[in-house]
């Protein structure tokens, strides 16, 4: 079974440009999560999509946005890139959490490493 796939794996942009990152979840998973990981440290929550809708977003400016398509794949868009946006962007998918149940496992892709010059 194919895991979570992300593209591109690496990209270099300059300040002010825009970038689109893509994610394909594991088959059967309806939830997609985006995280930013700077300097190989902890992950910062960006966005959560489920069934095509944005369910929650982290403490990031509006220039970070995304969407989820009917096939549950997802895009993350970052406009007006800044130097501090340089990071590894990780996408994860999961099965939907049952009401009152424990958290499910997140399956992560290998990430898209963005460098902003």
């Amino acid at each position, binding site marked *: 079974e194919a895991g*979570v796939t992300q593209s591109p794996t690496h990209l270099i942009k300059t300040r002010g440009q825009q970038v689109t990152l893509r994610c394909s979840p594991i088959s059967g998973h309806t*939830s997609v*999560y985006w*995280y930013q990981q700077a300097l*190989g*440290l*902890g*992950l*910062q*929550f960006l966005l*959560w999509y*489920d069934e095509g809708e944005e*369910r*929650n977003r982290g*403490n990031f400016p509006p220039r970070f946005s995304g969407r989820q398509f009917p096939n549950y794949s997802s895009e993350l868009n970052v406009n007006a890139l800044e130097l501090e946006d340089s990071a590894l962007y*990780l996408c*994860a998918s*999961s099965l*939907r*959490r049952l*009401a009152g149940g*424990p*958290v*499910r*496992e*997140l399956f*992560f*892709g*290998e*990430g898209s490493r963005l460098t902003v010059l």
Partner: protein
Amino acid sequence: TQLLEQSPQFLSIQEGENLTVYCNSSSVFSSLQWYRQEPGEGPVLLVTVVTGGEVKKLKRLTFQFGDARKDSSLHITAAQPGDTGLYLCAGARRSRDAGNMLTFGGGTRLMVKP
């Protein structure tokens, strides 16, 4: 904002030594997970703990969830070079609409030298 603090941030030890990584918060989590991330890869789940005081073992790794569900620890016995990686704790809220949204700690980077 719920914060998870991990300590130590960096740990370099010799093969065969024991170590403990801590994950602390002032907030209560409904469940807590530990992930390990190797260079060039995404994090991979090691364990999920749900009940306060719960202890889970995974070979040489022992995970404990605090009684109040605010903290957790990971103990590795007789560390091996294959244990090298970034260890991340992540907490989940008890909420109908929280899905599987996780708050991650800052990570502990472990290096085990042969």
